[in-house]
């Protein structure tokens, strides 16, 4: 309906406008992949900012563009915003050129988190493929902080080659916190003495109790397809299997329409969705 007042309407800041942030540290992780820690420039905003495991930020560089990147750091330390990024596109390659102290635009957090609070008391199987470990790392940190609240935790990690395994230096600490870390690679090299094969195959050695186990998975969609298959074969209920889905997104606030997946906007309703909700679309070709 119309308002009766007449005159120019002043502009409000657009929700796609980023906040100023700065690169603090860069940690190389694997060929083409590094973890970038950003800090919001405004102290008040920094104090207010909070995120949950599985959520993402939009990272922006002027004239280059913007892209969605999951937070890979500890949600218990929200002043330190780590993003593990593979330099493959316009924005991510430009991020790879940044040096500590450089400015970046950041807005978020967006999206649905892993439901860690609802999963208290359960056994967990986390399944990560490639850079899919990044959005699961905050879950690992959460579990370490609240370890007694959870049952058995198994973390299955797959990478194409040994050099692509992420966060390797932390595995020891994770194991010390009673998280069973099981790695596998698609192709071994001369340095590798561990398992060879795709991640879903690791399920063969698990004996999960379907009544108390939940599966959290992030990785290439084809990998997640097989993870779902293996989990269902072990009678893990559909609503106890959580996937983090990826689609191209431009706005992160459910108006650009690009991240639609059936009725879901993955920026708002996702990226984390339980399998029972996505099942009707998950098996449809090219949907």
């Amino acid at each position: 309906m119309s308002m009766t007042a007449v005159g120019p309407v002043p502009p409000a800041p657009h929700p796609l406008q980023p906040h100023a942030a700065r690169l603090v540290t860069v940690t190389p992780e694997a060929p083409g992949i590094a973890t970038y820690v950003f800090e919001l420039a405004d102290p008040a905003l920094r104090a207010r900012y909070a995120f949950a495991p599985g959520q993402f930020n939009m990272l922006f560089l002027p004239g280059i563009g913007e892209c969605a990147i999951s937070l890979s750091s500890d949600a218990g330390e929200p002043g330190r915003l780590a993003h593990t990024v593979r330099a493959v596109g316009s924005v991510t390659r430009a991020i790879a050129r940044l040096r500590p102290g450089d400015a970046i635009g950041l807005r978020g957090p967006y999206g649905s988190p892993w439901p860690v609070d609802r999963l208290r008391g359960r056994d967990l199987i986390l399944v990560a493929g490639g850079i899919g470990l990044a959005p699961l790392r905050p879950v690992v940190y959460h579990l370490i902080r609240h370890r007694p609240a959870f049952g058995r935790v198994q973390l299955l990690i797959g990478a194409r080659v040994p050099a692509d395994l992420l966060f390797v230096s932390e595995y020891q600490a994770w194991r010390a916190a009673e998280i069973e870390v099981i790695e596998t690679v698609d192709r071994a090299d001369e340095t590798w003495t561990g398992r060879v094969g795709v991640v879903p195959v690791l399920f063969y050695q698990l004996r999960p109790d379907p009544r108390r186990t939940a599966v959290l998975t992030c990785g290439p969609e084809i990998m997640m397809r097989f993870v779902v298959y293996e989990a269902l074969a072990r009678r893990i209920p559909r609503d106890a299997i959580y996937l983090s889905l990826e689609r191209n997104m431009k706005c992160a606030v459910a108006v650009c329409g690009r991240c639609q997946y059936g009725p879901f906007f993955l920026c708002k309703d996702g990226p984390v969705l339980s399998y029972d909700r996505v099942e009707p679309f998950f098996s449809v070709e090219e949907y």
Partner: protein
Amino acid sequence: MNPTPPLGTHAAIPKPALDQVLGALRDAGYTLVGPKVADGAIVYGEITGIADLPVGWTAEQEAGRYRLRPGVPGRLFGFAVGPHAPKRYLYPSTATLFRTRRTAEGFEVLPGEEAAPRYALVGVRACDLAAIAIQDRVFLDGPAPDPHYRARREAAFLLAVNCLEPGGTCFCASTRTGPRCTTGFDLALTELDEVLLVEVGSEAGAAMLAAADWRPASAFELTRARRALAEAEGRMGRTMDVRDLPDLLYERLDHPRWEAVAARCLSCANCTMVCPTCFCADVVDTSDLTGGEAARVRVWDSCFNHEFSYVFGGHLRPNIRARYRQWLTHKLATWIDQYGVLGCVGCGRCITWCPAAIDLTEELAAIRGGEPT
């Protein structure tokens, strides 16, 4: 000075008195946008008064075909919707979201739009009012309301028109979004032979109608208007059976009809561009040669465009079959889950303006008729 009619009034004015209302809107600072003849069609554009309207014109509309024709002489609104929807004034096809400028510390963010224009949209039909209500949900009820849309929307005056001449591709009676304007307007006109009936939908509408020599509509006039609308409802060029949506389409995502329509579909995106509810967008980065000044520009995009479904590693909907299915299931199924209503308002634009003459009512009927696979 005429008295100000109360909200809900059904008034009558002589046809030439519409110019008094339009003049009042102009005096109030509105830019008048209304139907006019240009480039072989009835489009929306800036108008100054009745003389700019397509007086005496109408249009034949069929799948993939639109032709201007002389209609009833003197008739101001004797035609159905053309290729333009109010969308282009409330949600423009290209808009600068914000700009950036390099500074010693990094960069500063500057506003994109300076101030929203104030449009009085003249001749808006019931289907388009329904479409505006849908876009309100998309842009204002989401997690982050769009201030650019809000500014244009709140500034807009909607002078609606009840449709008495449905077009060959219209089916708002099926989607229950017309032909009568029931809500969401400031003023709504019904054009009878010698007078315009005016329903007052808002205080702003009442204030503008007060500029014209109005009188209460007679019971006889109101009965004639009701009859004309009932008759129009029966003369829709198309029908669409909307029962069992969304489930019908969810169950038939593998129907062979998707392949069949893909053979004809050009994936050119015309349907989504003319659709009054389609909202998908791309955001484009521009800059000067040094990157010192840059801007983020939002442009209408389409699920029919190749780049739309790109993620690192490939295109999720690499072919026309997948894209047409995405579009139709969004309009007629997932939209219901997202916004509680159909994404289709029965305006028929996607049928008329499809260069390949594809008709969504026909496609849905075919998918409904065939057995699920």
